């Protein structure tokens, strides 16, 4: 079963490239849509044990990959499926060149396989390999279309990705030295022994993960990469790639016995808080809409890590839920940005204004997403942030909980600034003739907004289900 998640997209990839040129793009988009939908569906069905393919045992036995699927994996699958579908839709609407679109779908599939791998592997080096798979496909995705700032975004991402590689591999080497094995369990065992230096290895590995997730002080690449990339790629990156690469591994660490060690918890709390606060401050001063959304991502990533620092089971559930909520909200916000860019041709917020009247669907969905991420009831983001603060408070990290609440206020501030500058106010003369963006850009946005509102309204009913199911 687990192998299918890796091989089916791979097979699709190979077949797509063998098709004749004329039918390529349509086939690619269709295949992409089918695969991503399947991914999301599998993710929802998995925890309920509805997916059981015992007939595939011969295949599984032939290729014994060490892969496991658990609740966190299905979280990644779901987010990858949804964000991927959104990005695909944005791509169809914004990428004019057929060749670019085809390469986009191919790389999207490679990144998807990479993220499936990240969600399923068991040892630290294979995790690194699949993080690199996702990263290399994302490098090229940023450069498709060779836009204005694409190369700069690509370069900064590349350099910091290299640094992450150096960190992570040094950590793996040290772990190999101390324990002779490179699984997380071995690391936990070595860490527990008194007088061991295994913490150096783990610290280095975590630094690599922090770079990948875009946390402070390694966030320097995120804003440029998100802004320089084409709209569809930013959607995909913000929606799932950055999170899956960096944060998922941290979540697995928090789940393991390592997660309750005070040193690791302190580290996660500090890094999470600094990122959340710094990201929020950096987002306040931005003129470019995508850049503000990028710094907002840094801040929210910090939130998730902050939640992991609490160490309790409730905290991990809260972090996972915020992961999901942020994934769909950010994917949707970048879709909105793509719609605005498509109609207006600029991302400079100072030039915008009053778009709510001209682009009602975009405006309404953007409002839903921003209020959700800012944490206003009854939207989904409110519940997840409440859970995070609750988890922090309960596990004794009260000061951090207060900081989390204060950061929420900052989040609200910069999002309100975005709303005011872009959607409210009087319509500038230049934009008087602007109409709503095409269906490819509005339908996904509205759909994601509906999910956000739905999850928010139904949360009190969903939560016992999730807690009982064992996340």
């Amino acid at each position, binding site marked *: 079963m687990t192998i299918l998640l890796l091989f089916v997209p791979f097979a699709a990839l190979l077949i797509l490239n063998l098709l004749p040129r004329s039918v390529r793009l349509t086939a690619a988009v269709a295949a992409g849509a089918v695969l991503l939908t399947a991914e999301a569906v599998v993710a929802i069905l998995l925890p309920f044990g509805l997916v059981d393919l015992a007939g595939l045992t011969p295949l599984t036995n032939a290729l014994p990959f060490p892969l496991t699927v658990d609740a966190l994996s299905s979280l990644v699958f779901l987010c990858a499926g949804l964000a991927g579908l959104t990005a695909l839709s944005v791509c169809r609407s914004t990428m004019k*060149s057929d060749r670019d679109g085809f390469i986009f779908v191919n790389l999207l599939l490679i990144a998807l396989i990479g993220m499936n*791998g990240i969600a399923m592997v068991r040892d630290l*080096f294979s995790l690194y390999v699949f993080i690199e798979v996702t990263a290399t*496909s994302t490098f*090229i995705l940023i*450069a498709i279309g060779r836009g204005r700032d694409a190369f700069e975004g690509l370069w900064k991402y590349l350099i910091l990705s290299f640094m992450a590689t150096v960190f992570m591999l040094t950590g793996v080497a040290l772990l190999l030295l101390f324990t002779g094995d490179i699984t997380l369990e071995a690391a936990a065992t070595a860490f527990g022994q008194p007088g061991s*230096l295994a913490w150096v290895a783990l610290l280095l590995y975590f630094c690599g993960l922090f770079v990948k997730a875009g946390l402070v002080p390694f966030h320097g690449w995120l804003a440029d990469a998100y802004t320089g990339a084409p709209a569809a790629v930013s959607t995909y990156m913000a929606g799932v790639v950055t999170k899956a690469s960096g944060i998922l591994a941290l979540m697995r660490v928090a789940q393991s016995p390592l997660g309750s060690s005070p040193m690791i918890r302190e580290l996660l709390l500090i890094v999470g808080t600094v990122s959340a606060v710094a990201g929020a401050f950096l987002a306040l001063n931005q003129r470019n809409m995508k850049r503000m959304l990028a710094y907002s991502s840094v801040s929210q990533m910090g939130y998730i890590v902050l939640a992991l620092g609490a160490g309790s089971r409730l905290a991990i559930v809260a972090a996972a839920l915020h992961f999901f909520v942020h994934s769909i909200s950010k994917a949707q916000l970048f879709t909105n940005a793509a719609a605005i860019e498509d109609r207006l041709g600029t991302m400079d917020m100072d030039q915008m204004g009053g778009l709510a009247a001209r682009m009602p669907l975009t405006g309404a969905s953007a409002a839903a997403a921003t209020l959700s991420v800012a944490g206003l009831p009854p939207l989904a983001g409110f519940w997840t942030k409440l859970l995070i603060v609750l988890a922090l408070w309960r596990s004794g990290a009260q000061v951090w909980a207060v900081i989390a609440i204060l950061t929420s206020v900052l989040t609200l501030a910069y999002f309100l600034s975005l709303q005011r500058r872009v959607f409210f106010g009087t319509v500038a003369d230049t934009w008087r003739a602007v109409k709503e963006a095409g269906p490819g850009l509005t339908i996904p946005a509205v759909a994601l907004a509906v999910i956000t509102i739905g999850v928010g309204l139904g949360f009190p009913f969903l939560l016992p289900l999730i807690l009982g199911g064992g996340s």
Partner: protein
Amino acid sequence: MSVMTILLILLVLASLWTATTFLLLRAAIGLALTSVMLAIIMYDLGAGLAAVIELSVCAGLISVVFVSVISLTQRKPFSDYFERRASRLRRFWPLPVILFVVGIGLSLVSAPVTPAAAPATPQPDVRTFLWSTRQLDLFGQILILLSGVFGVLVLFKRNEKGGE
């Protein structure tokens, strides 16, 4: 002074030269030299297969990539050759000093680093190990190579009507 120490010193010297040399082409050659030294050291440590791959891929392929990029981005010789050289010297002279100091310092201290106990079962040969146990990594490598192919398609194509 064992053979290994001499080899390691040569490795550091090679990388030092790579970092500080003025002409880009020499830096690329220095990188290849560093790869060669690294391959020798790896072989001496017992990692023959890795040494060979390091030699052929890094000393070979990467040098080709660097030299071709250097030739594609080469402009006419600059007029401010001597100012640049002096500026480079100013920026880089601390490096050998730092290396020397840190090297001497670290060799005098010694932290309690105990390696893991030797494995109980005899280790399989690396070739069987790679193909039987770490197949997942191989799959990852294939994916990355595919990404690289797309990368070359996207990045190296001449800008006819490049997106603006």
